[in-house]
C-alpha cells in the first residue's frame, strides 16, 4: 500500500502542479493573489464537459481549445482589473478582496446558468483502461492528466527561460522598476502572463472531472486552497517551484488517505501552517528573490 500511495501521489502531484502553476505565475509577475483562479479551473471543467460530451471532441483538441480560449479571456480580464488595482497603495491585499468578489460572481453566474447538480465525464472519453501497477490499478485518465501537466510545465519553462517574452517576464518578476526603466512594456508582458495563468487554470479544469470524480460550480474555493498550499510549499512567486510543491502535496495527500483517511482534508491547512512556520519563503524561496 505504501508503494502504491507513493506512486499515485507522484501522479496526483504532477496534476496539482498544473492546478497551482497559473496562480503562482500571476503572483510572481503582478504580485496579486488571484482568488478567482479556482473558478477559472471550474470554468475549464464546464468547457470540457461541453466539448467532450456535447461535441465529442478528442482530448488534445479540448486541451488546446480550452487553453487558447481562456488565454484570450484572461487578456481583457487583466486590462479591466489589474492596472487599476496596481495603482492602489496595497495591491496585494486589495487583490484578495477583488478576486474573491470575482470568484463569487463567477460561481453564482455558473450556478444560475447551469444549476448546482454534480457533473462528471466518463474516463473512457480519454481512451485506455485501467493501468496495472504494483499489483493494483490506476485509471488511465490519471496518467493522461499527469502527462499533460508535464507538457504544460515544460511549456512554462520554455516560455520563461527560452523566449524573449519569458526573459522580460522574469525581469519583471525580479525587479519591476528596473524592468520599466529598461523599456519593458510591463502591462503587455503582465497581460500575457495573466492570460497564460488563466489558460493553465482552464487546462487543469479539463482534467478536474477525471481527477476529482465530479464537479459543481462550487469547486473553485477548495481548489484555491489546494493551489495556495501547493504554491506556498514550492515558493510563492516561483512558477517552477510549483512542481515541487505539487509533488509534496500529492504524495502527502495519498499517504494521508491511505493511513489517516478521516483527516485527509486537514492536509492543506497543516502543510500551509507548517511551511509558513518553518520556511515562510517556501522550499525554493531563495530563487524567487534572485530570479
Amino acid at each position, binding site marked *: 500500500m505504501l508503494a502504491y*500511495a507513493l506512486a499515485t501521489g507522484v501522479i496526483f502531484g504532477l496534476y496539482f502542479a498544473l492546478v497551482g502553476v497559473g496562480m503562482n505565475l500571476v503572483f510572481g509577475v503582478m504580485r496579486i493573489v488571484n482568488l478567482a483562479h479556482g473558478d477559472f479551473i471550474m470554468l475549464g471543467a464546464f468547457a470540457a464537459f461541453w466539448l467532450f460530451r456535447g461535441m465529442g471532441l478528442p482530448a488534445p483538441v479540448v486541451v488546446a481549445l480550452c487553453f487558447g480560449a481562456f488565454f484570450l479571456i484572461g487578456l481583457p480580464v487583466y486590462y479591466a482589473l489589474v492596472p487599476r488595482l496596481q495603482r492602489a497603495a496595497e495591491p496585494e491585499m486589495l487583490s484578495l478582496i477583488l478576486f474573491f468578489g470575482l470568484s463569487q460572481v463567477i460561481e453564482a453566474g455558473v450556478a444560475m446558468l447551469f444549476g448546482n447538480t454534480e457533473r462528471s465525464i466518463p474516463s473512457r472519453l480519454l481512451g485506455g483502461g485501467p493501468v496495472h501497477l504494483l499489483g493494483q490499478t490506476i485509471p488511465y485518465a490519471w496518467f493522461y492528466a499527469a502527462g499533460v501537466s508535464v507538457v504544460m510545465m515544460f511549456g512554462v519553462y520554455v516560455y520563461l527561460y527560452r523566449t524573449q517574452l519569458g526573459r522580460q517576464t522574469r525581469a519583471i518578476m525580479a525587479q519591476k522598476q528596473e524592468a520599466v526603466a529598461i523599456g519593458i512594456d510591463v502591462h503587455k508582458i503582465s497581460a500575457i502572463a495573466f492570460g497564460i495563468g488563466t489558460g493553465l487554470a482552464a487546462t487543469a479544469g479539463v482534467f478536474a472531472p477525471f481527477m476529482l*470524480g465530479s464537479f459543481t*460550480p462550487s469547486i473553485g474555493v477548495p481548489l484555491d486552497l489546494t493551489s495556495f498550499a501547493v504554491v506556498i510549499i514550492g515558493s510563492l512567486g516561483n512558477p517552477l517551484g510549483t512542481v515541487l510543491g505539487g509533488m509534496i502535496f500529492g504524495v502527502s495527500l495519498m499517504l494521508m488517505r491511505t493511513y489517516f*483517511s478521516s483527516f*485527509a482534508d486537514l492536509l492543506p491547512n497543516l502543510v500551509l501552517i507548517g511551511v509558513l512556520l518553518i520556511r515562510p519563503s517556501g522550499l525554493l524561496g531563495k530563487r524567487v528573490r534572485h530570479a
Partner: protein
Amino acid sequence: MQVKSWLCATACLLAAALSPAMAADAPTEIKIGALYAGSGQMAAASTPLHVALEYWADGLNRNGGVFVKGFGKKIPIKLVSYDDQSSPALAANLTNQLITVDKVDILLADSTSVMTASAVPVARDHKMLLWDITGSSPNFFSADNPYIVLLALAATDRYPKSIAEFVDQMPKLGIKNVAILYNTADYTAFQAIAVRKAVLANPNLKLVFDRGVPANTTDYTLLVNNVQAAQPDALLEFGYPANEIAFLRALQDNGSKFKFLFTGYGLTEMSLMQTNGVADQLMNTYALAAAASYPRKPEVGLDLEHLREAFEKWVEDHHQTGVEFGFNALAGYQAGLVIENALAEANSLDQLELRRAVFTLSGKLVTLDGPFILAPDGSQSGEILPLGQIMPGKNGAKDYSINIVWPPELATAKPLYPAP
C-alpha cells in the same frame, strides 16, 4: 313570537360578532421561512429540495392557499427564502433573521444534518418549532427540546435498519469478511455506526476494513484499491451524492468489482447517477429502496409518476436549470405535505400548538416516503426503507428494476450472491 324573534336576532348578532373576530385574527398570509444552499457543497442536495417546496407552495396558492383549522379558511402561503451558501455560520444568522425580522410562522431548516445543526439551537432559543426536513442526526433530538420535528427521513440511527438487520443474513450467503467505507459527516457516520455494530455483534463476520473519509472527498481511486487489498466479501459504502459519483467512477476507472456492494445513496438519487454515467456500476449492487426509485402507494399527496411529471413540468415552466427529481425533491414535497396536513389540524399558529398538530399526524399520515411516525423527541421513526438489489434490465441501467431482499415481509426475491 317576540321572544323567538329576540332569540333569533341575538343568535345572528353573536354569529356576526364571532365571524369577523375569527377573520380578523386570521393572518393575510402564512409566512414560511426557508433556507437553501444556492452555492457551495450542499447546493446539489439543497436546491432540488427548495425547488420542490416552491412547487408545493405554488400549487396550494393557485387554489387559494393552505387550510388552517384555527381560522376555518384557506390562507395564501408566502415562502421567505434565503441563500445560506452552504455556510453553517450564515445559516445560523439567517435562521435568526427569519425568526426576528421576518417573523415567520413556520421555520424550515436547510437540507442535510450539516446545515440543520446550526439552526437547531437558534430555533430552540427563540422557542420556535424547527421543521427539520432531512437533518437526521440523532444529536438534534432530546426529550427536553420540544422545538424540532423531523419530516422527510428516518433519524440516522434508524434509517439503515434494513441493511443493519440484513447483516445477520450475510454468513448464510457465504460472506465472512466485511469492509465499511463512509463519509464522516453525521448522516453517513451514524449509518456506519449502526452497521458496524451489527457486523461486530455477529461472530461469523469479520470487519477487515473500516475507514472514514472527509465529507468533501471526491476521489476514491486509492481508497477503492485499499479496500480491495483487504479482500472483503462485502463492501458497505456510505456517502453523499458527490462521494457516491466519485466512488462509482473509481470502480469504473479501475475495473473494480465487489461480490457484495451496498451504497448508501445508490437508489436515493438514481437519476443523478444515470446523468453522470455511473449507474451501470450500481447493477447487481444493494441500496435502500428510496421513494424516488421504489414506488409506494401514498394515502396523501401525488403518487410517484404523477409527482415526477408535475414537478418536471413545473421546473421546466419556471426555467429552473439542473434540478434532478430524486430523494431531495421528494423530501421538499414531503415537508410541504406534512405542513399542509398539520395546519389542517392546528387551532392556532402558536409554536407548541403546531407541534401538537404535527404529532396528531404520527402513525396516520402515509405518503410516498411511507408511514410518518414521530418518536416523542420529534425524531422520525417511520419512513424506513427496504433493502433492494438493483437488477439490470435489457438495456442495463436504463431500465433497471429492484428486487426487494429485506425485510422478509416485503421481499420479492432472494439476494443474488456473488454479484454476476
